[in-house]
């Protein structure tokens, strides 16, 4: 059975849920509603405490696939992985994928997700041709950039607050091989990371850096920069069977499994392996979705769950802000099992509350240790806001209303398009508090 909780498993809330089996099914009868896809948002942006979530994973039908133009229309609960199952053998690929292929199309639009190719392709919303939005008053809006354009822009990155997306049409991109040609380059400081971004972003569609957050010391930071691009030649790999997840975390592991010492050891080992990889050709799955081999990996963080900090900081403030952040995190004694960085590009998304902006983005996972974790995160949020940065709502469980308003100063533009019956834990916690 589908568990209706968020990926970080924090906060834990009580709420009702009701599925949409068909695009025309009546919406569940409840005072407040929120669409819920595959539950991969980390915090409370996919939760509706005390209300009802409309589970959309059951809307998982394809509607049409134009193989000559690469235009795919499908229901909102189809996952990106299910799309790749169909389109890769026919030489098509999703123009933007996040770090997991298990998100639904509806979720990808509602959070306007980005991937390792943001510097060239922008966000998921940049490649959405159209979608249908169902509202609690029974209205059905066919939205494109031109028709119902305000709804289109509000819904992309609109956190599910504008209504339920029932289907969407996406523009895919051509590929000739299922392999990615990739290269790993070790770096030893933030400055070296920035230099690698500058040197790679033109010739490589995908770039991302992993770093060992335990290695931070006065500007020194050990990490590995990875860059890659689709193999251009027709090597016959498109039709090969797709790898499936190899293992699953069956239940919440005890908290010490991802404790301080095991994480230090893991980071050192990961660096040792990763920094020696050099150039290689690998299938796109391990390159783009490295964690998908282990399903339910979120349970490894233990019974109290975990929180992610993902922010973006404008280019000119990036190095200063990231240094201050890493200093603050190191001082707190909390560390991250996986920490990644990337330089965003300047392609503008149609979405009005879209998260990415030009600058450097940083994502770190923290085991939930209660108040100490929350206060460390809040201190980080203040730092980020002070440097003109913003926090990613899809990953957040604790940013203050003020930090939200500083990061998204234009957030009120969304208000006219929000469905009066729709709300989320995140929205009440941030915008709700600002409006009160």
């Amino acid at each position, binding site marked *: *059975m589908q568990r209706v909780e968020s990926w970080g498993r924090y906060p834990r809330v009580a709420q009702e849920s009701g*599925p949409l*089996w*068909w*695009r*025309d099914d009546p919406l569940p009868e409840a005072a407040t509603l929120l669409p819920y896809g595959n539950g991969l948002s980390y915090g409370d942006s996919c939760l509706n405490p005390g209300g009802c979530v409309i589970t959309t994973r059951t809307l998982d*039908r*394809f*509607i*049409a*696939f134009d193989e000559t133009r690469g235009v795919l229309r*499908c229901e909102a609960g189809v996952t990106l992985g299910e799309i790749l199952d*169909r389109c890769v053998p026919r030489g098509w690929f999703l123009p933007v994928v996040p770090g997991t292929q298990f998100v639904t199309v509806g979720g990808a639009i509602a959070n306007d997700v980005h991937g390792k190719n943001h510097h060239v392709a922008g966000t998921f919303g940049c490649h959405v041709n159209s979608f249908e939005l169902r509202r609690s008053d029974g209205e059905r809006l066919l939205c494109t950039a031109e028709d119902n354009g305000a709804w289109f822009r509000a819904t992309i990155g609109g956190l599910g607050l504008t209504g339920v997306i029932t289907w969407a049409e996406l523009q895919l991109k051509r590929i000739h091989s299922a392999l990615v040609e990739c290269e790993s380059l070790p770096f030893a400081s933030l400055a070296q990371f920035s230099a690698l971004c500058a040197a790679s972003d033109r010739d490589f569609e995908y770039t991302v850096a992993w770093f060992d957050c335990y290695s931070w010391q006065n500007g020194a930071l050990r990490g590995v920069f990875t860059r890659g691009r689709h193999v251009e030649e027709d090597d016959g790999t498109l039709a090969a069977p797709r790898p499936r997840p190899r293992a699953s975390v069956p239940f919440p592991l005890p908290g010490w499994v991802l404790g301080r010492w095991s994480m230090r050891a893991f980071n050192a080992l990961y660096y040792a392996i990763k920094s020696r990889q050099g150039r290689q050709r690998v299938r796109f799955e391990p390159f783009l979705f490295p964690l998908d081999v282990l399903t339910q990996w979120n349970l490894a963080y233990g019974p109290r769950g975990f929180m992610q900090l993902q922010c973006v900081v404008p280019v000119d403030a990036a190095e200063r802000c990231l240094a201050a952040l890493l200093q603050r995190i190191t001082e707190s004694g909390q560390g991250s099992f996986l920490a990644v960085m990337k330089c965003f590009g300047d392609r503008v998304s149609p979405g009005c509350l879209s998260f990415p902006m030009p600058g450097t983005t940083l994502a770190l996972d923290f085991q939930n240790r209660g108040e100490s974790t929350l206060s460390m995160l809040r201190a980080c949020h203040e730092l980020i806001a002070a440097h003109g940065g913003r926090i990613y709502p899809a990953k957040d469980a604790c940013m203050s209303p003020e930090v939200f308003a500083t990061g998204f100063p234009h957030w009120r533009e969304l208000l006219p398009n929000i469905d009066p019956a729709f709300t989320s834990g995140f929205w009440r916690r941030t915008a709700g508090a600002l409006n009160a």
Partner: protein
Amino acid sequence: MPMNVLIFGATSAIAQAVARRYADTQATFVLVARDAAKLAANVADLTARGATVSATLVADLEDGDRHGEWVAAAVAALGTLDVVLIAHGTLPDQAQCEADDAAMRQAIDVNFGSAASIATHVARELERQRSGTLAVIASVAGDRGKRSNYVYGAAKAGLAVYLQGLRARLASCGASVLTIKPGFVDTPMTAGFAKGALWATPERVAAAICRAIAARRTVIYVPSFWRPIMWVIRMIPERIFIRMRM
């Protein structure tokens, strides 16, 4: 080899999940269902997944006079029937069936009468072609009459016995009959129930059905843990069972 698949009740969640598994192997379908819009949504989905849908029939499956006509139409469209799945059914309101005997008769007609009638026409065709599998969705509810849903249970029990006989009749000609006994499955039919640990997804049930069809099995419980559970429930003496008020 791509198979020819005929499905009655093609918009049911289990049938849809079974159809997708066959679509992955480029099967050719004839689909019969009551709701045209839902059927069209499933046809689009299966087509995008690589299947061919050679015909669809929008029909009320209770219309017994037309069962033969539909099977004939499917044979005309497909040639040989490799797999026939009868998946339609309703979950009647037990209290209403107790109060209103027309509702009771209708529940028996849909869940037993129409399925048995369609199975009869399909069986003739399988006998003629001397191959193929008829798979029919019965229920664990047919294994013992419970006060909470004995109308549904009786219809499904009748269906299971009917299929036993049909299986014996077809055994000599090379066709097989599969009785599927799902437990609790999370589908629109069970929307009103609180879901717990015993519940299965339609995808899981569909995977078991396709494996059983390929292996030419006779009776399956899905998920398989229902077999020992139902064995125990059948073994409980009637006097004790009455007192359990199930």
